[in-house]
């Protein structure tokens, strides 16, 4: 089927060869593969940046349309656009004094963008994270009410871990060693089983993409 569709064949070949080069470099082939793989990964970073620009255009377009049409919750869209503008303006029009003149911040982790994040975003994100404790309690109670065996096991193990970390309980003889044994042998075995299964799935998914059986990157 591929041979009858040159456009698809070319795309599959480019994807396959690029993937193989990066794989060989990852496997330690060295030589000419290292700079080639580095170049490909750099290209991916550039494409991601272009994708970010397209994403910004898409987000702005969607929210401007929402504001114009006065759709429900349009005010939130307006706040989003203004916040985006604030970060862009802070990054471009308030450059930092540098040795050779003014320099733009290189990342979100530098002033003045950093200041915006610290005073506005981080408190909001922390509040949301704090909610997770209540959400997990609510989810656990609902799951127990549902009568799910898996959920009951999860809640029981979580409760066990929490209780055994209390200082008076943790100080009891044998508790620490038992928990360590459970962690090292039971929990780790489960985690490794999960990891192995997921790795096999990921390997098959990757190989199918590399040899062109699955082509999520292609236009038909």
């Amino acid at each position: 089927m591929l041979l009858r569709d040159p456009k698809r064949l070319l795309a599959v070949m480019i994807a396959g060869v690029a993937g193989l080069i990066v794989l060989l470099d990852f496997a330690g082939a060295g030589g000419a593969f290292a700079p080639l793989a580095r170049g490909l990964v750099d290209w991916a970073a550039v494409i991601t940046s272009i994708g970010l620009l397209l994403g910004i255009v898409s987000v702005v377009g969607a929210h401007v349309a929402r504001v114009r049409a006065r759709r429900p919750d349009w005010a939130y869209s307006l706040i989003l656009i203004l916040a985006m503008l604030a970060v862009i303006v802070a990054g471009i029009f308030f450059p930092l004094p540098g040795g050779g003149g003014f320099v733009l911040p290189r990342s979100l982790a530098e002033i003045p963008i950093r200041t915006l994040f610290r005073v506005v975003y981080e408190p909001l994100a922390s509040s949301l994270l704090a909610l997770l404790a209540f959400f997990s309690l609510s989810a656990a109670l609902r799951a127990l009410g549902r009568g799910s065996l898996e959920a009951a096991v999860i809640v029981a193990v979580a409760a066990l871990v929490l209780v055994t970390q209390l200082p008076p309980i943790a100080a009891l003889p044998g508790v620490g060693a038992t928990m360590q044994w459970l962690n090292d042998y039971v929990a780790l075995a489960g985690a490794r089983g999960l990891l192995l299964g997921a790795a096999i799935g990921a390997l098959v998914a990757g190989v199918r993409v590399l040899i062109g059986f699955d082509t999520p990157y292609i236009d038909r």
Partner: protein
Amino acid sequence: MLLPPETILILAAFLVVVALTWLHHARVLGGRFPSRRPLPALDTLRAALGRGAETGQAMHISPGASSLGAADGSRATTAELVAGLLVAERVAAEAALNGAPILVSSGDVVAHLALRGSVRQAYQVAGQAQDYDPARVQLLAHHDDLAYATGVTTLQGREGLEASAMIGGFGQEYLLIGEDGAQRGLPQVAGTTGSVALPLMVLTTASTLLGEEIYAAEAYIAPPGPAQARLLTQDALRTGVIALLIGGFIYALVQPALGLPPLPGL
């Protein structure tokens, strides 16, 4: 130029997987489909697609805040995202065929572009290109799990969804989405490979895909065809890994008594 032994070993293993993939693909193309164990989680998804066609309410699909090939390798969840993309494409194809509306969201720009492409293609392949609406594929955040989670909860509150399928890379932020959905009575299908999000998924929905099941999901949603070859390859590799583990265990048991050399790394 000679390659190091480790590289040759990795390449040999890779070639074995490629050969198995080809073999199973050919086998499925020849009409020999694998027998599948039931995955009840996906029944929720199929039922929601059927209901969506009648109620006109959208089915939400999300690969999470997975990122495609992060250049620094720090938080790349490429494989999970590929699984999420394939599921989104299959669900979009089914939705295009039966007229159920969908709403797709993501938390990474590259994933967003990939989703726009794959969903559009799904509608084209189904012969319903006129029904594809790019505004139904939304970018909610970029490399920010919490922002993405709040975006999804907003969608869940505003759009009146029929169901939500969240299959891909998720972390603790899933709880914000999943619990909000559960409180709204929204049927949810969730799946990931991460050990942080999986317990949270089990708590918030009965329809959970555990670990490797997310890679099999596409083959279960798709009509009988090449997609099912992946199940055969996954099963063959899993059998091989189990055999290696048992063989290694027995070898480690008898090795001191028989004076055999120890296994590498032990």
